[in-house]
């Protein structure tokens, strides 16, 4: 678990990212390194603006890196591709497509024949629990249902990794808890490698095999915490609370640093 596996699924070494906006430069990431083995569930935590989304977007190929090495399944990432699926906080569903057609989007792109497409979309509709909603449009669905579509759509492409950027961030507390359990079920059924960004320490401790806490901007790994609690996890257990306390302390310190930096800009 120390990131020195022989063949990590995600392999990031000394990643740099600087955004240039006119004359202003924003150093979002510096010396960010992370190796994630196959089928591991990793949660990425850090103060706001520390570069979590940037890490995911570079992995997804939606953003270019400024330096360093980013490999997925041994292949250097250069552009977006269906081997990396992304799930967005705003769901990003195509409003004119039904649930089924949303899920089949990536399959259409690959020109998969219709019968095969149907079979695959049906499989993932069942997996995420969307049976009976195949012909509904996104606007008819609740937030939790929408994100089920988002997850199924990403999974239908059968990617090696699932990149999730605060996927439950806009859901109410109850739905969020339910979706966390659902995601764990889906994860154990598919054994995907998951990189999951969240602001909720509670969510991270409930979900992750491993929690990576980032420093304030420019972001790098501050602390790599293994969560060796058996699943299903009990949020009220003393072990859970002690892990949560540890992560929270790390995060608080970085948060204070970020705030201090904000008050005295360099």
């Amino acid at each position, binding site marked *: 678990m120390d990131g020195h596996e022989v063949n990590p699924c995600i392999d990031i070494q000394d990643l740099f990212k600087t955004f240039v906006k006119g004359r202003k430069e924003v150093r979002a990431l510096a010396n960010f390194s992370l190796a994630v083995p196959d089928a591991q569930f990793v949660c990425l935590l850090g103060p706001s603006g520390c570069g979590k989304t940037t890490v995911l977007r570079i992995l*997804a*190929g*939606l953003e270019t890196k400024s330096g360093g090495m980013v490999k997925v399944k041994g292949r250097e990432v250069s552009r*977006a*591709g*269906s081997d*990396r*699926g*992304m799930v*967005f906080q*705003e769901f*990003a*569903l*195509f*409003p*004119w*497509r*039904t649930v089924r057609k949303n899920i089949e*989007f*990536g399959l*259409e*792109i*690959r020109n998969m024949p219709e019968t095969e497409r149907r079979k695959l979309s049906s499989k993932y509709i069942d997996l995420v629990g969307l049976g009976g909603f195949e012909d509904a*449009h*996104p*606007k*008819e669905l609740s937030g939790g249902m929408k994100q089920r579509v988002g997850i199924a*759509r*990403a999974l239908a*492409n059968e990617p090696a990794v699932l990149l999730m950027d605060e996927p439950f961030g806009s859901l109410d507390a109850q739905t969020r808890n339910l979706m966390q359990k659902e995601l764990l079920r889906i994860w154990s059924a598919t054994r995907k490698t998951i990189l999951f960004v969240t602001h909720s320490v509670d969510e991270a401790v409930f979900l992750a095999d491993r929690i990576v806490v980032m420093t304030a901007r420019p972001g790098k790994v501050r602390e790599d915490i293994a969560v060796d609690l058996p699943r299903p996890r009990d949020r009220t257990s003393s072990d859970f609370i002690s892990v949560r306390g540890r992560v929270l302390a790390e995060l608080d310190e970085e948060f204070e640093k970020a705030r201090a930096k904000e008050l005295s800009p360099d």
Partner: protein
Amino acid sequence: MTNDPLKALNKKLKDNWTQYLLAVISIAVFIAAWHLYAAYLHENDSGYQGYIPYPLDVAEALVDSFRYEDPNLGLTMFDHIAASLERILLGFVIAIVIAVPLGLLMGTFRKADAVGRPIVELIRPIPPLAWIPIFIVVLGMLWGPVAIVALGIFFPVLLNVMFGVRSVEPTLMDAAKTLGANRSQMFLKVVLPFTTPYLMTGVKVGLGIGWMCIVAAEMVGNYGGGVGYFIKDTADVGAFEYMYAGMIVIGLLGILTTGVAGLIEGRLSRWMGMK
């Protein structure tokens, strides 16, 4: 407030009923006031009574205009409507064929926008009617008026399509990218469907303008009938009840075309799950 669907439906029906009732009352009051005013002018022999005929006389003229050919061109109102509709339809098709690709192009590429925008901004403020003299001379009796209508419909369609392309949510593009779409697939499967409701809004607005253009164009020349021509022609010979009948036809046709476009727009958006 209430979750009872039957109650909600009843309320909706009631709302619709009062709405229709009010509309009928409002029109009835308008016609009654018109009638009283006409009667007042006639009784006082004010000299203006010819300009304000009785509503009933206008209604009769309206019916007659469909039944009999006018003495001037030998055309019934059906023929006039057909002539105007033909011009609108041709103008509409031409406007769409040019405005949609151009709007997509200018909405997608900054360079295309930089090239096209100055010309668009230069021509847009000129009322389409200002082109009548030159268009009639250069393009002739059929395509001249058609070109004027096309010009009127062109800009709202162009601008709405451009706006639609610009409004495509970046996260949708990101999602398509991560699902493996290339640039042309993103255009076909994200930009085009996203822009369709915007196009329909442009069409609705454009058709309204198109009617104004065609009536006005037909009033300044005779290109073989048309409702605008009918209005001008009947006014010239002092047959004002017929003139009003023509105006009513124009109004109804305008409501009909934009109404149909609006209906299609609504249906399409709903069918596409966007409203």
